[in-house]
């Protein structure tokens, strides 16, 4: 091996050492814990095999967490994708003041999620919050929002939509702007209507970017934690208890670290499926 070959590996070494120590090692540790009865208040942690996983998959509360997370995923995508796409199409047009408007619309996704959750508490406040006030003004009844089991998940979805629709908008807009102009010119010459152009040109050309934003958002939604912690802590009851919140409560409220580890591993495996799809798409994008 010459010096030329060893140099690059040395450059990568510090990164790899750190990542092995902060990712691989803790995950292996967590895997071993997930096969033990590990209650922090009890000094001994006996090996129990798959019992934590069996308890997890037979726990109705975990089934509920899966259902809540699924609903959250569908609800958020159903709102964020169409709104984000619509805004991206608007911003792809030419209009006065675009240079100022565009960065303003991106602001929400930079704000600390805990702060967003707190904003939700202010805005959705049932008695004197501005949202119920506006609803009353339009002759509609106010809602109980995050304080009722019926509307709590919807409130979380709306708040997260405020924060993350800009992400959909921004990425889709970047995709729209980089589309090749030639097919559009010939379509116009052929007299295609704008609806036809959108359906037969824009959508198919944008398909890779659309798939990318949807998978990236999905991976993030499956981990939703911060906003819910501040807004409802999984309640009322278990109405907004996502997998993330469930794992936290099992581990750090009930101190059942063994079962929390098994839940964390199930979540990590679920996500790795999505991540594999994401990496495939990134790989294709670069070729």
């Amino acid at each position, binding site marked *: 091996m010459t010096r030329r070959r060893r140099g690059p590996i040395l450059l990568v070494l510090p990164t790899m050492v750190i*990542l092995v120590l902060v990712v691989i090692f803790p995950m292996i540790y967590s895997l071993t814990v997930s096969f033990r009865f590990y209650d922090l208040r009890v000094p001994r942690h006996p090996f129990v095999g798959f019992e934590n996983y069996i308890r997890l998959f037979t726990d109705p509360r975990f089934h509920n967490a899966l259902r809540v997370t699924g609903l959250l995923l569908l609800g958020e995508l159903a709102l964020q994708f169409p709104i984000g796409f619509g805004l991206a199409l608007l911003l792809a047009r030419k209009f006065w003041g675009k240079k100022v*408007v565009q960065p303003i619309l991106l602001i929400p996704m930079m704000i600390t999620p805990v702060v967003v959750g707190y904003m939700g508490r202010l805005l959705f406040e049932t008695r004197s919050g501005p949202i119920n006030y506006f609803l009353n003004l339009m002759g509609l009844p106010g809602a109980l929002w995050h304080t009722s089991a019926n509307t709590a998940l919807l409130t979380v979805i709306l708040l997260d939509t405020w924060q993350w629709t800009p992400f959909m908008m921004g990425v889709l807009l970047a995709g729209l702007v980089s589309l090749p102009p030639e097919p559009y010119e010939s379509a116009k010459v052929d007299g295609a209507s704008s609806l036809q152009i959108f359906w037969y040109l824009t959508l198919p050309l944008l398909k890779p970017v659309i798939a990318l934003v949807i998978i990236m958002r999905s991976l993030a939604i499956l981990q939703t934690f911060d906003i819910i912690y501040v807004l409802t802590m999984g309640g009322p009851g278990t109405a907004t208890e996502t997998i993330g919140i469930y794992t936290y409560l099992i581990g750090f409220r009930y101190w059942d670290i063994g079962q929390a580890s098994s839940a964390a591993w199930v979540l990590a495996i679920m996500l790795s499926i999505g991540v594999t799809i994401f990496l495939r798409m990134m*790989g294709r994008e670069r070729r």
Partner: protein
Amino acid sequence: MNLRTRKIFSQTITYILIGIALIFTLFPIYWMLLTSFQPSDELMQSPPRFITSRPTLEHWRFAIENKWRYFINSLIISSSATAIAILVGSLSGYAFARYRVGGDTLPFWILSLKFFPPIAAAVPFFLMMNRLHLLDTHIAVIIPHLIITIPFAVWMIKGFVAEVPRELEEAAMIDGCSHLGVIRRVTLPLIAPGIVVTALFCFIWSWNDFLFALILTRSHAMTLPVAIAGMREAHGLMWGAVSATAAMATLPVLLMAIVLQKYIVRGLALGAVK
């Protein structure tokens, strides 16, 4: 409708829709700022007030006097996690871009860590820090934050290096520069803006983290987001004080977002789009 009126019509619709989007985007931020400047007796009134006639600094004074140390904690933790990530990330980002170390597999594995769920790492980190008696120290939070900052830094810097034409480096080498000299005098100055952008993003991701800090700190090393979440229980209905603290947490991020505005999308999409 002739062409002209149609154009005016579509322009008007664009402005109306953009206007609605702006109101929806800005109102929550405005509402939080307003609450932080309103005297306590004006808060949570029905009907709500949309402007205040008697602005006060009492909540901001409370936030700064009582929550300043959490602000400093956040600052220490985020700067450290950023500095380490930039240091090791520049080295490996350069190596990945120029020498294709580890082919596609290694950089892609690092990229995939951007989606690694913090809750999965939080449990073992809690046990390890507990055993090492490091709970509630800055280090206990800085170390897991590297999971957030390093993969991002590596991937972004790799992208920025790849944009520097290889010919530039080769030309300097022919002129008698050593390899390290080329990196220092040619490549580094060219990617410097990219490194600043990457650093600001790393800082924001670390600043915005809640889960690691929640589990690994109690009081001494508590970060600002954890302090904000904790105010709910401790102070019941102190809306003004919480708003001022929340605004205090938002301010640095907003300032950085202004600097970053051209790169926000690229940063969030991990360079998948420019």
